[in-house]
């Protein structure tokens, strides 16, 4: 039972970590453009500053209710509205917000611009917990962005570690070009003979089944101990166990004796004719149509004494 509790605690912990990994905490400020004269246009055909966010997790994250701001004193400057399916960001995907100070244009137009902003801050739905922040650089020039070298990787405390001036703008797409081959091809490159995958996967298969072994060994032992206690309590004394530890030897002896007696027909069993006979029985009365079985019971009146 002790082992079971331990397992449940570990399972709970793992669950918490997994759940956390796919929460709003996984969102990252990923890239921004301050002066947009010849870059990406919004749905209204206008070129404005933009801020890109990236979902660094492998689960969908809903950012509705989170906040974007350019002012550390007012973290709730722009609340990302709920009720918009577009705020559910798919795993490892990007989302672009237009910093045009025109929030009436839709969910992805924030209520500030970057012309005089010192910092961009992304805050959790509680309005207090800062998930990510980055200072705004005004020395970048036109149509030059500042972003993470690799999507989602780097600091979240505003130190700018892992950020760099980008050689090209990449709104709503990866900052670093992914010119890697597909997963299986990479696997064949890394592991041309298949030994690495074989050893890794076999280790995992063994690990899973070894864990199951330990858990069920522990449960089995606990069950045997409980069985012994019950037997002892029922007998009022310690019953000597068989070599297998679960069924008392006396039980085996009783079964063997019973079987032996059963096999000795003349001692334990009378002779059978092995002839099955069906006797026809006439019943003149059948209650199927009797009124007495179809009527409700007559109510009885209890007289007061």
């Amino acid at each position: 039972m002790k082992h079971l509790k331990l397992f449940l605690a570990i399972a709970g912990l793992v669950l918490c970590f997994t759940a956390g990994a796919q929460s709003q905490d996984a969102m990252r400020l990923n890239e921004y453009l301050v002066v947009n004269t010849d870059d990406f246009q919004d749905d209204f055909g206008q070129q404005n500053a933009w801020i890109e966010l990236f979902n660094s997790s492998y689960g969908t994250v809903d950012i509705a209710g989170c906040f974007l701001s350019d002012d550390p004193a007012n973290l709730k400057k722009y609340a990302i509205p709920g009720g918009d399916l577009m705020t559910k960001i798919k795993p490892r995907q990007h989302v672009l917000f237009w910093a045009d100070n025109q929030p009436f244009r839709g969910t992805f137009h924030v209520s500030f611009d970057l012309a005089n902003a010192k910092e961009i801050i992304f805050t959790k739905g509680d309005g207090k917990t800062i998930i990510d922040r980055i200072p705004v650089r005004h020395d970048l020039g036109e149509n030059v962005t500042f972003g993470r070298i690799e999507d989602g990787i780097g600091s979240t405390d505003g130190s700018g570690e892992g950020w760099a001036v980008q050689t090209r703008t990449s709104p709503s797409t990866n900052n670093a070009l992914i010119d890697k081959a597909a997963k299986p091809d990479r696997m064949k490159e890394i592991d041309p003979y298949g030994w690495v995958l074989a050893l890794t996967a076999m280790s995992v298969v063994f690990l899973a089944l070894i864990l199951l072994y330990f858990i069920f060994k522990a449960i089995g032992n606990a069950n045997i101990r409980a069985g012994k206690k019950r037997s002892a309590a029922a007998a009022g004394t310690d019953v000597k166990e068989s070599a297998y530890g679960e069924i008392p030897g006396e039980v085996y002896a009783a079964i063997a004796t019973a079987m032996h007696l059963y096999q000795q027909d003349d001692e334990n069993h009378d002779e059978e004719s092995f002839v099955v006979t069906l006797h026809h029985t006439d019943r003149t009365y059948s209650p199927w149509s009797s009124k007495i079985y179809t009527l409700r019971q007559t109510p009885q009146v209890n007289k007061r004494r």
Partner: protein
Amino acid sequence: MGHILDNLKAFWQFTGFANFEWGYLIMIIIGCAFIFMAIKYEWEPMLLVPIGFGILIGNIPLFAGLNVGVYEEGSVLNILYQGVQRGFYPPLIFLGIGAMTDFSSLIANPKLLLIGAAAQFGIFGAYAISLALGFDAAQAGAIGIIGGADGPTAIFLSSRLAPTLMGAIAVSAYSYMALVPVIQPPIMRLLTTKKERLIRMKPPRPVSPTEKKLFPIIGFLLTAFIVPSGIPLLGMLFFGNLLKESGVTKRLANTASGPLVDIVTILIGVTVGASTQASQFLRWESVKIFIIGALSFVIATFAGVLFVKFFNLFLKEGNKINPLIGNAGVSAVPDAARVSNNVGLEYDPKNYLLMHAMGPNVAGVIGSAVAAGMLLGFLG
């Protein structure tokens, strides 16, 4: 008269005779061989009859555009084939397997789980051979799973990693599963001494209902947390088993292990068979897959038996495991366990190994599902 002759000519163009190619005849012969093996020798008849007849259905020479072929989008066969292509038949079969499997022998003697793990070497041995024979990594993973001796898992994984090879992989997996009584015994005899074959194992202890109820829950949580990509198979397998063991969902368990699994087996068998159209199937690649499939079963049997021998080095006298149950680590349930029992009886007519062999056999089902999850995670 001329008009009638024109119509007859047009009709002739639609017939199988007009569109005949030798490849179709070869496949029809293979289909008939499957049906023959199933009826004459009763080798996996539940699988080989539907697959065999499916091969006949899929290899009637067709006039393209009739919209009846399994690969013609929107045709009836194509709609039924979606269960294979999109991979929703295999988890349903796993539900049935779970609902009809008794894990008692495994719970009673959990060390048998490790034999089920060892036999999965067949999968990765086949993966390495496939890479050496020039398949890409995803195709190699799909081919490798044949070594798990688990038809639904093979279909599930190949539908995701190498859909073009699925027909050959599925037919190969099911064929070798049917041939387990032919492939495994010589290897078992080769690797064991007479003394080892005579080892008598302790009878398994009785398992309490609570343990049986806990097994699917803990088993699922643990394996799924380790390999989430195996959730469709592991989830359904353990869910089916919980239906059986909970004691309060008897009707659901009966449906899952009876009518549901029968229906899905029919559909999966016929559609997999039908997917082996000569044009898709009769390729050099298919021949290679069949060779690798045979080797994977051999490797799995070697690994299972040798692992038991190795394991015995650490076990006390009286607790030793009969290495003849090592072959049962492949998940061909219950054929592999039956093979262990039959070979054991050849040497000691009173040594019934069936219950002991069922332990590694069902562990093999779990092991192959975990291995499939790993392959999907690495290559999918």
